[in-house]
């Protein structure tokens, strides 16, 4: 856009979308868990999409019951698959819960506070509003949900392995 570009060699100083989507320490702003949530949301989203492709392919085997049963037996025997399933379960739980928060904030525009006159200590209203509390709720519920999913996946039952 600027005409000076042709004369002066400018240094491109952009970290790129990949680094911005996976590195939570790219910008070390204090008081900003939203960024960690953004990174987790994006990473879990990609995990789920890749799983979705695999899932649609694998479930096509259900048309043959014998093959499906032997496939599931093979699948259950391997701990690597179980761990993979556990990761996907955690990704789905987090993405869903954080998705509800983002739906409220981005689509319905609630939970971001009201405009106000700046006064010390100058923390923006959206960083103090209901969505910030929602972040903590999402974090706690995700961990709880992930533990429950882990119990279900590794033991097969919803009982505490005591």
């Amino acid at each position, binding site marked *: *856009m*600027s005409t*000076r*570009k042709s004369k*002066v*060699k*400018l*240094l*491109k*100083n*952009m*970290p*790129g*979308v*990949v*680094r*911005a*989507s996976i590195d939570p*320490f*790219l*910008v*070390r*702003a*204090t*008081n*900003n868990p*939203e*960024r960690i*949530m*953004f*990174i987790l*949301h*994006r990473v879990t989203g990609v995990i789920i999409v890749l799983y979705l492709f695999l899932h649609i392919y694998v479930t096509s085997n259900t048309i043959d019951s014998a093959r499906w049963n032997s496939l599931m037996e093979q699948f259950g025997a391997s701990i690597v698959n179980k761990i993979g399933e556990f990761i996907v379960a955690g990704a789905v739980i987090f993405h869903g819960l954080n998705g509800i928060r*983002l739906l409220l*904030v*981005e*689509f*319905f*525009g609630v939970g*971001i*506070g009201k*405009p*106000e*006159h*700046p006064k*010390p*200590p*100058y*923390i*923006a*209203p*959206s*960083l*103090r*509003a209901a969505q*910030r509390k929602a972040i903590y709720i999402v974090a706690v519920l995700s961990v709880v949900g992930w533990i429950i999913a882990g119990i279900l996946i590794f033991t097969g039952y919803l009982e505490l392995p005591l």
Partner: protein
Amino acid sequence: MVARSKFQELLAATRQPPKEVTIRVKRYDPETGKVWYQDYKVKTFRGMTILDALLQIKEKIDHTIVMRYSCRMGVCGSCGVVVNKKPSLACQTQIAAVASEDKPIVVVEPLYNFPIIRDLVADFGDFFNKHRAIKPYIIRKDPDEVEKGEREFIMDPHDLHEIYEYSLCIMCGLCYSACPVSAGDPLYLGPQALAQAYRFIADVRDEGYEERIKIVDTEHGCHRCHFAATCSAVCPKMVDPASAIQRLRKIVFMKTLGFWKKKKITQIAGPLKEPLRQIEAKYAVENILEGVDPEEQAKREEKIDLEL
């Protein structure tokens, strides 16, 4: 919890900084294309800012270092740099707040997501063009109302309050530098331009919201925002672009669905019904000193000798 961490940050700024700090500056030479980090040892004083340190380096140690600054008091927004990976205004960042006795090193880099001209100077051309693209001025259906400007527009204090926060933007580019979307997408309008778009769409005096919504409703407009809210966390003027973009996006969605209509558009103020009341100036009737007549005192001639 949040307020306390911010408070700690403010409190750190009041402390005595380490006697000597190392300022590590990321430098760039456009002629050779070389990028390197250079260390400078700077003797500090209480209340020293990053800008003070940079100016001291330029004055006493290395004259080739280049930075941009103007007002030195956080008003002009030209001294934005990245200090210890956090975009900040150099003039508002105390050395005591970013360096400690244990770690007396401050890393100063040019703003991320901007093309760099030299050392710490970023090219704001695209940034300003994006700001220009969203038409940051009052648009009326009858342009004469603005251009001739015979009378003012009516605006309640309440209406002002709705947009006042967003109108404080000084265009320092810190939000743009912190944004994870701008980090990869140079066409993304950026938090600053989108916040200003909301500021003008929400302004009761403005009638140009249709054109502005068309400008922001693109693949590289408001829909690329993912609410990482780092823009609001680094803003030195508490403009809160993150909330502005969410409000803007809600308006865009509701407009597309046909539920949104601008609630209030004010008209130009009519001519005065009667001339302004004129108040006759009078001296105070009761003086604090007893027995002194103010009228008489005013008449008294006082000889003031100006020649020293």
